[in-house]
């Protein structure tokens, strides 16, 4: 884990350490929330909406989110599009390759429960939360860029409310 993340454990032991941890907590989580770099990952129709959200009209960069090509440098993976049975192990590996404080946004009906392909399709995974732990679900097929941006803002709120202690068991 990053060196800075060991500091809270020692800070709690010294007297008055609580103030330091809460102060540190807000700084760390504010920074995490304010600069979420999302992985360039899109499989189906939601990927086109993800592109439009990244383009000039609904700009992701306003929230400080830029796209990174490699999972190593990204801390948010927006699963945009249908995940088929053949793609599921790839998605799991991509998630494992990401560095630790990582978050997942499940965008679109297919990632929540298989969407329009829930019935009668032998090759579609019914939702991705049994593959990777999901933080934010965004319904819609494909969801509008506004709802994707709202999902990201909800994720930022969620990160800010996090406690330092609950990083460990994630």
């Amino acid at each position, binding site marked *: 884990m990053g060196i800075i993340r060991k500091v809270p454990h020692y800070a709690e032991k010294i007297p008055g350490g609580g103030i330091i941890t809460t102060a540190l907590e807000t700084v760390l989580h504010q920074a995490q929330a304010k600069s979420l770099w999302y992985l360039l990952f899109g499989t189906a129709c939601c990927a086109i909406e993800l592109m439009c959200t990244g383009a000039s009209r609904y700009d992701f960069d306003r929230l400080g989110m830029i796209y990174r090509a490699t999972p190593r440098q990204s801390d948010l993976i927006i699963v945009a599009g249908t995940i088929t049975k*053949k793609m599921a192990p790839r998605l799991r590996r991509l998630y494992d390759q990401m560095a630790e404080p990582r978050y997942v946004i499940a965008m679109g009906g297919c990632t929540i429960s298989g969407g329009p392909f829930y019935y*009668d399709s032998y090759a579609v995974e019914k939702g991705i939360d049994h593959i990777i732990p999901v933080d934010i679900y965004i319904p819609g097929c494909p969801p509008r860029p506004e709802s994707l941006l709202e999902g990201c803002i909800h994720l930022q709120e969620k990160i800010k409310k996090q406690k330092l202690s609950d990083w460990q068991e994630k």
Partner: protein
Amino acid sequence: MTKDELKDYVSSHFDGKLTPLDTGRYDPMFQVKSEDLMEVARALKADENLQFDYLCNLAGVDTKEHFEAVYSIASISNNLRLDFKVILPYDKAEIESVQEVWPGINWYEREIWELYGINVLNHGNLKRFLLPDDWDQGHPMRKDWDAPDFERMPEF
């Protein structure tokens, strides 16, 4: 040449190998026996005032009684369109690969092999490519196919 002229020309010419059917709703539809498929394919491409050199589509069909392989072909130079099908009984579902007439049919044949189980003779690389590599539940597009987690849409 119009669709009817094409229909008469084809049914009269290839010494009866292409028997016209009336199920085609837009373009002329023929039926071919599976053993002289290769010869018909070569003739259709070589015939000078037909020149069917462009492959539109090969569709595998499971009509609950037998398999069908429906070839849709077109001619770029003469602006013609033609469909013909090969009826394959369930027990002997084998078809000749017509790759050397239309090289683009390689993946289509591979697909009907993978999804329907129609065996394609001397095809070259009949490998699995649409379904996951560890797929062991048979050929999913068949009507009688079923799997434990395969849910049908309820009738409402």
